């Protein structure tokens, strides 16, 4: 693995900044408006970025720094912003994320919030520190989830375990698609187990057409569910890198509940592919003592049959996989199980845990063939990919420039998808998600072969 990129500058970044992840996570909480403490542009750019993916209104407020604010501190602006949001949106919660600007001038947001006293009785204020120069959007996302869990489950609160609450499971899925989140909810419904899914933007960021204006769209994890998280049977957290980072002493929402309330935490990779989904279901069986419904076994059966039908078209094909580290790791695991070699696994993230994570997921013979790069941008990726003879790339739409230059097809998954409709509806997880991914990948390869063929057979 190359740690040091040859270029000092980042050229076509494969990452976004921390506050974006926080803003997205806050959108997954009922009645919540994100507020970025910084310049107007941060909010507007991130709104535009998220709107272009979700095709839904994504309101993000700003404390709107001016030159004077930068000199004298952002306290007054932040207070005004909070009050104006409360008046216009009447939210349950305002999720306040900092930016590089407010972090660098050293605003003490907690103190500013505290100094507002009881003015904000109707609206909870949750603060997360997200300096844009540290980490990526993924970190911002996880930090926001942890901050919310932290605030609503303070140390002093009584860990009252009644029999009803005991059956409940907290699930921290990370940055998944709307369809992924809906699939998770359906699974829990099918095994008749209560779920606290945090965050859950699947309704808010993919709702029906409106009869009248909704200042805050319906949906999101209800705050009263978050408040009860310390009474759950256990927590599940997706992400091998997130788990490894917890082991290194970094906090996560799940680890916080574990250390503060002894809620057992089970961590696993994002369940993409048969093997990872098997692990997820067996974990569920263990935690809930419930049998997995027949429906899912049938899905699994059809999926493996499909793998068999398509094996020749994918075997030994070479893929570039990129995006968030945890997403890439899980996707690489899936590719390995269908016979595709993820010759290049790349991420703009730089956790230092990427290699180990992939080593734990990939079989040894595959792992040896994989070139792994953290902190990589798309221009480096493109240059490196030229030496690897890839057949296709799998990742978000930002890789299009690269795949166009490389003249290979791009299978669009993950976030963001800016150049297609419905990216937020892509199902990645579970047997059903693997089925859809498998079909898309096989068909992409078939189309490439068919288009390139001089004969152009109308059979496979």
């Amino acid at each position, binding site marked *: 693995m190359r740690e040091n990129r040859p*270029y*000092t*500058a*980042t*050229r*076509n*970044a494969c*990452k*976004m*900044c921390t*506050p974006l992840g926080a803003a997205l996570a806050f959108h997954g909480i*009922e009645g919540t408006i994100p507020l970025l403490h*910084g*310049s*107007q*542009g941060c909010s*507007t*750019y991130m709104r*535009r*970025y998220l*709107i272009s993916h979700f*095709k839904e*209104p994504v309101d993000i407020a*700003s*404390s*709107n*720094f*001016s*030159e004077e604010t*930068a000199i004298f501190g952002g306290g007054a602006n*932040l207070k005004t912003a*909070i009050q*104006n*949001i409360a008046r*216009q949106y009447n939210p*349950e919660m305002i999720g306040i994320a900092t930016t*590089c600007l407010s972090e*660098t001038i050293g605003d003490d947001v907690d103190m500013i919030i505290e100094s507002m006293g009881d003015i904000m009785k*109707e609206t*909870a204020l949750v603060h997360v520190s997200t*300096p*844009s*120069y540290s980490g*990526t959007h993924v970190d911002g996302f996880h930090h926001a989830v942890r901050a919310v869990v932290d605030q609503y489950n303070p140390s002093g609160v009584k860990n009252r375990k009644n029999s009803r609450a005991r059956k409940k499971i907290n699930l921290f899925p990370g940055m998944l698609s709307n369809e992924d989140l809906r699939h998770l909810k359906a699974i829990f419904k099918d095994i008749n187990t209560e779920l606290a899914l945090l965050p859950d933007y699947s309704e808010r960021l993919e*709702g029906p*057409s*409106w*009869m*009248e*204006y*909704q*200042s*805050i769209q319906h949906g999101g994890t*209800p705050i*009263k569910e978050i*408040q009860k998280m310390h009474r759950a049977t256990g927590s599940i957290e997706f992400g091998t890198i997130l788990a490894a980072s917890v082991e290194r002493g970094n906090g996560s929402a799940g680890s916080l509940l574990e250390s503060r309330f002894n809620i057992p935490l089970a961590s696993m990779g994002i369940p993409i592919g048969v093997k990872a989904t098997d692990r997820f279901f067996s974990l569920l069986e263990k935690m809930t003592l419930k049998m997995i419904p027949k429906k899912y076994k049938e899905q699994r059966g059809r999926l493996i049959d499909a793998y068999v039908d398509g094996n020749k078209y994918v075997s030994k094909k070479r893929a570039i996989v990129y995006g968030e580290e945890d997403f890439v790791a899980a996707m690489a695991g899936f590719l390995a199980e269908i016979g595709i070699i993820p010759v290049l696994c790349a991420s*703009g993230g730089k956790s230092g845990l990427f290699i180990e994570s992939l080593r734990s997921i990939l079989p040894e013979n595959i792992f040896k063939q994989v070139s792994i790069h953290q902190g990589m941008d798309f*221009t480096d990726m493109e240059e490196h990919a030229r030496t690897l003879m890839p057949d296709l790339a799998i990742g978000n739409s*930002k890789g299009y*420039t690269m795949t166009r230059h490389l003249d290979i097809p791009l299978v669009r998954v993950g976030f963001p998808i800016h150049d297609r409709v419905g990216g937020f509806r892509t199902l990645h997880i579970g047997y059903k998600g693997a089925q859809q991914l498998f079909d898309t990948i096989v068909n992409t390869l078939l189309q490439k072969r068919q288009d390139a063929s001089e004969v152009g057979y109308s059979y496979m």
Partner: protein
Amino acid sequence: MKQISAKKLLLPSSSTGSISILEERKQQVYLKGNDTFEISCEKKSVAGSVSQRACVFCGSRVVLYPIADALHLIHGPIGCASYTWDIRGALSSGPELHRMSFSTDLSETDVIYGGEKKLEKALVELIETYSPKAAFVYCTCIVGIIGDDVEAVCRNVALKSGIPVLPVHSEGFKGTKKDGYKAACDALFKLIDLGYRRSSFHYPDILRDGKQKIPLSINILGEFNIGGETWIIREYYKRMGVEVVSVMTGDGRVEYVQSAHRACLNVVQCSGALTYLAKTMEAAYGIPYIRVSYFGIEDTADALYDVASFFTEAQEIMERTKHLVQEEVEELLPGLEEMKQDLTGKRAAIYVGGAFKAFSLIKALRHLGMEVVLVGSQTGNREDYELLKEMCRPGTVILDDANPLELAKYVIEKDAHIFIGGVKERPIAYKLGIGFCDHNHERKIPLAGFEGMLNFAREVHDTVTSPVWDLVPRKAGRSSSIQIPVKGEKP
């Protein structure tokens, strides 16, 4: 902490009464025929309002972005570069360096120890690799705080590399998007002036007696070649016999920008962004300027006539212009007339960056028989709003620096059929079952000039006449094309 009440989040049905206008914003929301106050504008957005505006950096970035053979390096943490990568539909006929996103990607240690060294190293490497004709270094918020001496780094690298390396003082918090335009204009002027000084060094006599001017020539300012618009407009001037020295910045090249001082006239579109540069050039080189718009038939024709009448020494230009306009309009009208039949009486809402575009859009929509019920801009000034008040019919809502809540409130109240705006306005329109036309930087279709008017009409027509609105709950049952049987009624 408050307990949840799901009901509270529901607004009363069929009403927008619960959308309140913030007290501080009441002077920025004007109802023609009802209100009489002067619209408050050109002020900072209220903290906590979800303004549709961006920041200083955004203003600079949009203006300079289309210069295709320059390096655009964004000095700051990664976000500002990520969110503006390949963001505009600004086309280039040659190099495409502008479509890459370069960032110094500042990390925690850079913030602590300063980013100057990293900036210098990044610049040197990138200039070596991509051989740009000039480099722009955009300062983002944090640079203004950690105090990097970007000027010094740029000077250094310029000396080493032999190309102009220009700092753009676009720290996000140092004003509004308009200040970003100004910072971009400053950088552009520096570039032009370098060209001016270079040529006066080589040809001092020629410059002194004024012969450096290219006869019958103009610069096009504030035209960004979205979807190829610059090419359309250049072609008109070519047919008129007017030489275009440089376009700032559509399909832009450093070399041509540096020759801009040789033009006889600056023709400024998108008044908000580049009027400042035109004024600066007038003061420095005595080049007069006029303000025009290329959106809509009337404004495009006016623009060409205004330019033609400037060159009194060449009467044939006016003759050619008249011929051109006549030819173009004749070709255009049948298509427009056909669409007009479906569009007559439909109501439109407009929310755009600069007010100048709004003027043109109002005229263009009237041409299609449509009525404007809401019009607003992010950066309009006092004169702009006075003119809007004059242009609009009673009952029209005029907004400065609006937010999604206000926009939604008035498009519902005014029952608009189409919303004309940018990406951030699109979901507001669509969620409420209203058609949408993108008139912002991200569009890929040329809407300028005569053929642009036809494209615009098609865009409007396509969305307004789409059958999907019949299925949208807010509109269902209102339409004549689908009858939903109501209980007790015979279908």
